[in-house]
């Protein structure tokens, strides 16, 4: 392996690594604009220039292979001067409209200016090249051409990741600008990643724009429940409001996120969100659980189907299972038919839309649960499951449904917390378990497991847990250990 020296210290580079990568792996950060670890190297911004002994010219570290014996300087006066010069070039035609720019606070022009620039402007304001602003280039994206530094990350993303090739650099020289093929919109299913990778305020998310200054945002690491892929996400929120979902790149699940996944947080604020327990179309006043008990307990358990849900967490499913066994006793327990768990588009989207499908299979194995056959739905008078599972099975039966939204299902609707509001374990298509971490609170909604536990006590049978951590312990022992990683 090549031995190199960076700023006086020896390091080992990996075979095929560039200087920038080797430095980064060893905790030395070299500033960059066009380089992105998941895209091809363009080498156009020239921000990553470093000094290499025996080479008269500075070299770009993002494309220069780390070779044995190289002596590299990333902090020499020459390198610092070069960075300052590149920043100056980038800024001469930049509008510097930070106060009205949504990127402010997470902008690489701002950051590097503070770190490496701090120069006085010697370019006349009136000489700046003006370009088009606020272009609604896709459903989720706004383009400001004036702020673009032409790093081509966005172009390469569309060429290399989505392979949809919508974007290109039109014109030449300082007349260049990012353009989209005539008649097209930037609406590929992964378009919002472009707002993330754009290092400046040229591409911004139309959904997030101007809703919050980024420095107010707090972050919870969580997992996306948009499909069985289970991408890791960062939920960004402030004052009990979620503002956006960002990717949390990791080697196991995802680099990017799909747009649909990013929009899952909208379930929190849906107009149709179920407000209160509803029984036969009537909103219940007060907590309403005894009314629920009154109704459910009238049903013949032998004609009741409890269907576990791949949309609910392992804990909630466990509570459902235990409720069926301990409270209803003689009911039948099922799980829905699952789809193939594989990537449908070569990128991230899974053929299986339910986030906890893999957990269903473990439940089936551990507790010998059979698959629900919709054709035999006639055998039952009453169903207990969640609304999404009911939809998936096209159930139109009276039942007890855990639901985020108000809907026309017959029987009892229980307004549950979203997993942005409560904790739950999900097992992705690769049997990797992840726990959602609540970013916001919602005291008006129910946790599935708690509802079931309280109903069970009304039945006079206590479920074998007192609180969530005891339930988690059961899940760990029965479901997670040995089946997931």
């Amino acid at each position, binding site marked *: 392996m090549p031995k190199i020296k960076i700023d006086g210290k020896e390091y080992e580079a990996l075979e095929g690594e560039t200087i920038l990568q080797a430095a980064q792996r060893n905790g030395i950060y070299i500033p960059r604009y066009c380089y992105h670890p998941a895209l091809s*190297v*363009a*080498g*156009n*911004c*020239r*921000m990553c*220039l470093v000094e290499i002994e025996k080479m*008269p*010219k*500075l070299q770009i570290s993002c*494309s220069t292979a780390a070779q044995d014996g190289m002596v590299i300087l990333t902090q020499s006066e020459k390198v610092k001067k*070069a960075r300052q*010069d*590149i920043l*100056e*070039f*980038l800024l*001469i*035609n930049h509008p510097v409209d930070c106060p009205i720019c949504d990127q402010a606070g997470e902008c690489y022009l701002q950051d590097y200016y503070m770190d490496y620039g701090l120069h006085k402007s*010697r*370019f*006349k304001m009136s*000489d700046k*090249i003006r370009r088009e602003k606020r272009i609604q280039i896709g459903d989720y994206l706004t383009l400001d051409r004036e702020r673009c*530094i*032409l790093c*081509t990350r966005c172009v390469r993303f569309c060429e290399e990741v989505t392979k949809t090739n919508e974007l*290109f*650099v039109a*014109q*030449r*020289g*300082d*007349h*260049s600008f990012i353009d989209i093929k005539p008649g097209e919109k930037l609406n590929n299913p992964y378009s919002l990643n472009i707002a993330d990778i754009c290092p400046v305020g040229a591409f911004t998310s139309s959904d997030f724009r101007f809703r919050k200054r980024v420095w107010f945002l707090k972050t919870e690491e969580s997992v996306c429940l948009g499909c069985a892929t289970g991408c890791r996400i960062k939920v960004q929120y402030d004052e009990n409001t979620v503002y956006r979902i960002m990717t949390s790149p990791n080697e196991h699940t995802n680099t990017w996120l799909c747009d649909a996944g990013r929009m899952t947080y909208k379930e929190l604020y849906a107009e149709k969100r179920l407000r209160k327990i509803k029984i036969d179309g009537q909103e219940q006043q007060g907590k309403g659980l005894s009314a629920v008990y009154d109704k459910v307990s009238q049903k013949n358990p032998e004609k009741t189907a409890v269907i576990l849900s791949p949309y609910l967490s392992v804990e909630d499913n466990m509570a459902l299972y235990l409720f069926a066994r301990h409270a209803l006793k003689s009911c039948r327990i099922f799980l829905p038919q699952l789809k193939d768990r594989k990537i449908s588009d070569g990128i991230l989207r899974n053929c299986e839309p339910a986030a906890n499908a893999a957990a269903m299979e473990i439940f089936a194995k551990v507790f010998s649960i059979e698959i629900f056959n919709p054709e035999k739905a006639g055998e039952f008078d009453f169903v207990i499951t969640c609304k999404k599972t009911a939809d998936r099975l096209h159930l139109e039966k009276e039942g007890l449904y855990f639901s985020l939204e108000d809907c026309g299902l017959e029987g009892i609707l229980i307004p549950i917390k979203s997993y942005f509001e409560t904790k739950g374990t999900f097992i992705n298509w690769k049997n990797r378990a992840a726990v959602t971490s609540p970013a916001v609170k919602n005291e008006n909604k129910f946790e599935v497991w708690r509802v079931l536990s309280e109903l069970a006590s009304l039945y006079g049978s206590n479920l074998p847990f007192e609180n969530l951590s005891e339930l988690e312990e059961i899940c760990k022992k029965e479901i997670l250990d040995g089946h997931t990683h």
Partner: protein
Amino acid sequence: MKILLEKSAFDIETYLKNGGYEALKKALSMKREDIIEEVKKSNLRGRGGAGFPCGLKWSFIPKTEGPKYLVCNSDESEPGTFKDREIIHKNPHSLIEGMAIAAYAIGAQTGYIYIRGEFARETRIIEKSLAEARSKNFLGSGILGRNFSFDIKVVRGAGAYICGEETALLESIEGKKGQPRLKPPFPAVKGLYQCPTVINNVETLASVPYIVLHGGSAYASIGVGKSAGTKLFSVSGPVKKPGVYEIELGMPFKKFFEEELGGMREGEKLKAVIVGGSSVPVLTAQEAMAANLDYESLQQAGTMLGSGGMIIIPERQCMVEALFILARFYHHESCGQCTPCREGTGWIEKLMKKILEGKGASEDVDNILSISENMMGRTICPLADALAMPAISFIKKFEHEFNAHIKGNCNLCRK
């Protein structure tokens, strides 16, 4: 002594009468490595501007199976340069013969001539000459009864100077936007359509038949030292006899200027010389008179032989205006990938315009100097340097003219 323009041959019959295609016959009986060896021995250097040793470039082509390409750079767009055009006009078959030999030596089956879009007449000449060569089986399959097949396609540019840069040229042939590629990989490893490719200038390739026919050392003995052979200079400006000249490398500029060009026209006085195309630093008349026309001597004089596009600048020409024109050109032609070139060329043009219009201050001149320094050696291709180097030389050598503009008393301007 002349090689390229010694005898003109507009058609193949004349070319054959002049001994044409004998070199190809000889080459086809030689081993490929031996041809490359002869070209190395000849010290022939690239005539497109960079002066890279030709034989060495050919030797980088891997000996593996699979397609390889030979590309002739006939984009000739550098201001002041019109010497390849002369070869196409007067001796088109020397290029085709040179290409066939080069293709044989590197194992290419397909060649391209990428020709400047404005060269409509020259394109017709090339097409006609290619047809002639095909009819005599100097191109095509089983050339001259040998197990060697090679043909040449013509691709026309569309007016972009940057497409003369060899990797932008490859992009352009592939149908993409003409933008230089990041190197490495070099074209010899991954060139046209990702295959090993040699790119040579027209003049370089047209020099090859002589080398094969007479041997590398015969060619090396022409010229001086490492500057071997003859070189074309296209001379523009108010000299008595502007035009294209072929001279042995090493000739003193003074001799060339006085004996070949006949000196300045009546009433004109020599002020400065750009010897190698608009991208190289300018020489004052005095510096030029002391220099010899070869790679080393010109480097010592602080400039470069470049393409041999020699621009003679008379006393009456305002250097501020001249640099403004250059800045406008390079700004217009920058492909715009690299930050320093994209932003720097436009910035310099703006400052030059200001100075030219008498609205400049001395700090504008200082700023051009520092912008130029900041652009140099930091880009993907040398286009940024091609403005930066002349800009620095113009300002350093003709500072008084810039000062005059700032004070508003330039008496040279035609305003």
